[in-house]
């Protein structure tokens, strides 16, 4: 698995978004989970609530610190990854697959175009290192 898959969009706050037919799946990047260290708790919104692009929708806690999660896109939460309640370490193990966070029905799918692509995101990481 590539560390930064080409079919995803990325935020400056290290979340990723994957467009599916009607919804967008959201998670945190390989870089995010690696900098956080062992993820021990994930706080996510409820199904049916709304999230707003660029604002916090939850929090992720590692053994060391708490970080806010920022929504890449606005919309209604249609699914939440309940597996993370008992197995938050999945975020470390499979950040792009089983470690996804929420699925959102976007209010404006064009917001995705404003996010970074894999190349731009990797450039961003390189600069912050």
């Amino acid at each position, binding site marked *: 698995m590539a560390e930064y898959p080409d079919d995803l969009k990325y935020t400056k706050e290290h979340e990723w978004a994957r467009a599916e037919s009607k919804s967008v799946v959201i998670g945190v990047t390989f870089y995010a989970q690696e900098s956080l*260290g062992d993820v*021990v708790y994930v706080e996510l919104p409820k199904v049916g609530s709304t999230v707003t692009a660029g604002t916090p929708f939850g929090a992720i806690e590692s053994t060391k610190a*708490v970080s806010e999660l920022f929504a890449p896109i606005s919309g209604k939460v249609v699914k939440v990854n309940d597996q993370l309640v008992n197995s938050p370490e999945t975020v470390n193990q499979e950040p792009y697959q089983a470690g996804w966070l929420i699925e959102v029905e976007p209010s404006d799918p064009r917001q995705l175009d404003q996010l970074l692509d894999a190349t731009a995101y990797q450039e961003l990481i390189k600069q912050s290192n």
Partner: protein
Amino acid sequence: MARRTPLYGAHRKLGARMVDFAGWEMPVQYSSVVAEHQAVRTGAGLFDVSHMGEIEFVGPGALDSANRLISNDLARCSDGQAAYAGLLNDRGGFVDDVVAYRFSPERIFICVNASNREKDYRWMTERAQGVKPLNRSDDYAQLALQGPNAAKILQRMTATELSTLGTYRFTERKVAGIHCIISRTGYTGEDGFELYCSPDEAEKLWFALLEEGEGEGVTPAGLGARDSLRTEMKYALYGNDIDDDHTPLEAALSWIVKMEKGEFVGREALQRQKAEGVRRKLVGFEVAESGIPRHGYPILSRGQKVGEVTSGTMGPSVKKAIGMGYVPSQLAAEGSAFQVEIRNRPVLATVVKTPFWKRR
């Protein structure tokens, strides 16, 4: 610029992630905090704690001089015995928490926190009557080998019979040919040893221990695991749980205060506090709902802020979100309930018996 221990190169070789801790560039983790934590609970972990300081009192009257500066009683220790103690100010608050080693009445060796090395030395110099302290911090590296397999590993590397070395006892012997103070102490709640040696030989000792312990699962462990391990034991961390404004009586550490031993700095203030009653206490609590209590989060009772969380973590061994904090004494009993405000949401917390973790 951040200071480095003699093991900096070793940490880099092992791929550690380095962080600033009290002005020191220290390893926070090598692989994973949780994995390193578990290694210490089930096998063995090796920590670099060379950033800690060492202050000695040497010569006739050394014991009396040191004993007047700390809350515990070195006169009641034997030679070769160490004691956990408070170095207190005149208000009874912690200048630092220390481990004092009695080599003999004429040599007392005190291990102090990295963040307080200079402060402690100045304080002791100012307040010592008779024998003055020597700052030996740059003369020692310190490695901590901790975990149920620690004794087995170390025994193969030294002629000292470790089965006769009890908890909080120490001796001076060679380990892997390197002269060490071998102390059966630690900050993890597991059996283990702290080894003081010359900085020049620290790296040799470090890799010798890792190599010897390979079969017993020894792993280098960083400050992240050190913090979760000590939190599960409710061991106080200076600057988090105790400081100049909190006394040992408030910190539930009255066992390190020996009032009857005679004069020591802070004694009068503690006597006063005892007579007036201790108003707040450091308790250990579990959080029932989801979320992890963190340093600085408010503690609420009936909608009012009554205290603050001083330490908190998701305990990898107890598998619960746990924390420590000061609460009014009437809320300090086991079973008492209050709220911890986690991200603007009050979450139920219950005082539990500590340590959170019991060695099996």
